[in-house]
């Protein structure tokens, strides 16, 4: 498995990440980075399932949306503080992940994909139709900004640091998990489930664990999203979000720690950069083509291919 980067490299990276808001020409650029950060959390959550456990979930937008709606509703309707809402969002998303994990016990491969897709479909329909709870297609505006211990993350700069903190935390948790015996158990399930069982790896238990953690992380991203954009609507369940996540993970490098983060940054920054040149539809078309090309030519993703290239020299 990959070794953690040298301390000097790490320090330089942190310094640049912390200093970035002061070096950008406009708040719009910071907005793009914030969204990249939120997607980085999402991509990492999907990677836990797709990259490490080997299960493709096409319903991840559902966990994201559940987190977003939970956090928003608790703040708007009951006046819960952000911290409590954030935790609740994670717990609720993780809970639905547990449901999927337990329901899908015997399902692998395509069947798992279908169950996750169906789940997302049902959740999406509920969000649209249960007007009294979710306000339907009109969505929930006016969500208060995140705040901790009295400090409200109103400015973009503050939001950036909050998202950076959570993204870094997510990365740390994923790194610790992946390098542990539980991480090895997940990889074993991906590689050879029968062999894994023969040495005592409990497939159902770890599958449920992976879905719970993965969904919880996605819920965290959802909560951040809700309190940053201050508006949540059933559009969070749009399939294009799931697609974007999948492309980020697969093209970035599934089964690696850095790959999804790199993928998230590339596929958030690039579309914005190209916004002048091409419309959103062209982008999505490009994503589809890119996904296919990646699978043909860079099947392991950008980061592993770069690493392999460096190793060979």
């Amino acid at each position: 498995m990959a070794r953690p980067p040298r301390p000097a490299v790490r320090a330089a990276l942190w310094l640049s990440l912390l200093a970035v808001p002061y070096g950008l020409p406009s708040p719009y650029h910071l907005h793009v980075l914030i969204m990249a950060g939120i997607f980085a959390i999402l991509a990492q959550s999907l990677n836990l399932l797709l990259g490490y456990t080997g299960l493709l979930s096409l319903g991840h937008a559902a966990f994201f949306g559940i987190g977003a709606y939970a956090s928003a509703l608790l703040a708007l309707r009951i006046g819960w503080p952000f911290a409590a809402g954030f935790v609740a969002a994670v717990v609720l998303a993780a809970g639905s992940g547990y449901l999927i994990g337990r329901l899908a016990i015997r399902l692998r491969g395509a069947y798992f994909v279908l169950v996750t897709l169906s789940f997302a479909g049902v959740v999406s329909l509920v969000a649209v139709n249960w007007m009294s709870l979710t306000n339907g297609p009109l969505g929930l505006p006016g969500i208060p900004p995140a705040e901790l211990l009295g400090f409200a993350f109103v400015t973009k700069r503050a939001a950036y640091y909050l998202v950076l903190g959570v993204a870094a935390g997510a990365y740390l948790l994923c790194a610790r998990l992946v390098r542990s015996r539980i991480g090895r158990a997940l990889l074993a399930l991906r590689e050879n489930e029968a062999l894994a069982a023969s040495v005592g790896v409990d497939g159902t238990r770890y599958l449920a664990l992976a879905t719970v953690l993965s969904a919880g992380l996605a819920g965290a991203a959802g909560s951040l999203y809700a309190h940053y954009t201050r508006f949540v609507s059933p559009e969070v369940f749009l399939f294009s979000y799931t697609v974007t996540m999948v492309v980020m993970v697969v093209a970035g490098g599934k089964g690696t720690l850095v790959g999804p983060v790199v993928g998230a940054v590339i596929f958030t920054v690039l579309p914005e950069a190209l916004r002048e040149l091409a419309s959103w539809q062209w982008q999505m078309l490009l994503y589809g083509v890119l996904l296919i090309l990646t699978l043909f030519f860079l099947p392991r993703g950008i980061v592993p291919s770069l690493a392999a290239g460096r190793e060979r020299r």
Partner: protein
Amino acid sequence: MSLVVRDLAVSFGGVAALAGVTFRVEPGTITSLIGPNGAGKTTAFDAITGYVRPLRGEIGYGDAVLTGLRPCDIAARGIVRTFQRTSVFARLTVLDNVLTGLHLRGTSTLAAILGGSRTVRVEEARLAREAEAILALVGLADRRGRRAAELAGGEQRLLELAIALAAGPRLLLLDEPAAGLTAAEKLAVTGLIRTIRDRGVTVLLVEHDMRLVMGVSQHVIVLNGGLVIAEGPPAAVQASPAVIRAYLGQGAR
């Protein structure tokens, strides 16, 4: 502890792979399960270790009843098996393969792992040492950084053995461990099997190489057509007319 198999029957779509076999494997021995192709040997392994649900019969290990348990639970009770077709974690390194095999030997909880607790680091160091010891035992220590898929066939078989050993079995079921090995490699594997037995692990072996079987086993069980047709010490079994008929009757091997 003895492994007791009583009236085990397994059927696939109406065809009886095992028609009611009964045998015992005594602790501290090397026992071999032999028989012509299709006799039901691998099926017996699959049933004992929970990969296949038997039609009837009981499997017991000491006081524990194994019938109906899942493979991972059976492994937790100290019974580990290898597979007929080479089974390794292809994309993981040799070291990671063995570390994965050590899964049951670790106790770190999710909370401790996510929290970055020191006990996790201590345990990881211990597991790494144990993995190195196992790799040294099977002779793969210098391959530790290679991906399992890059190993030669014989080396992969050794890796399989290492992974199974890592799980800390009290009873080890080896499914054709010498299949596809060169003469020198077979010698090494035979030596390993004896070393494993000497460390207190009971070994149940399925093999086609008769010289290996007769040379290493204390006890031999012969299956044919889903039934036990003979059992006893190697010399007695070799001389048994029923066994000779079973093998010759299948045509020249």
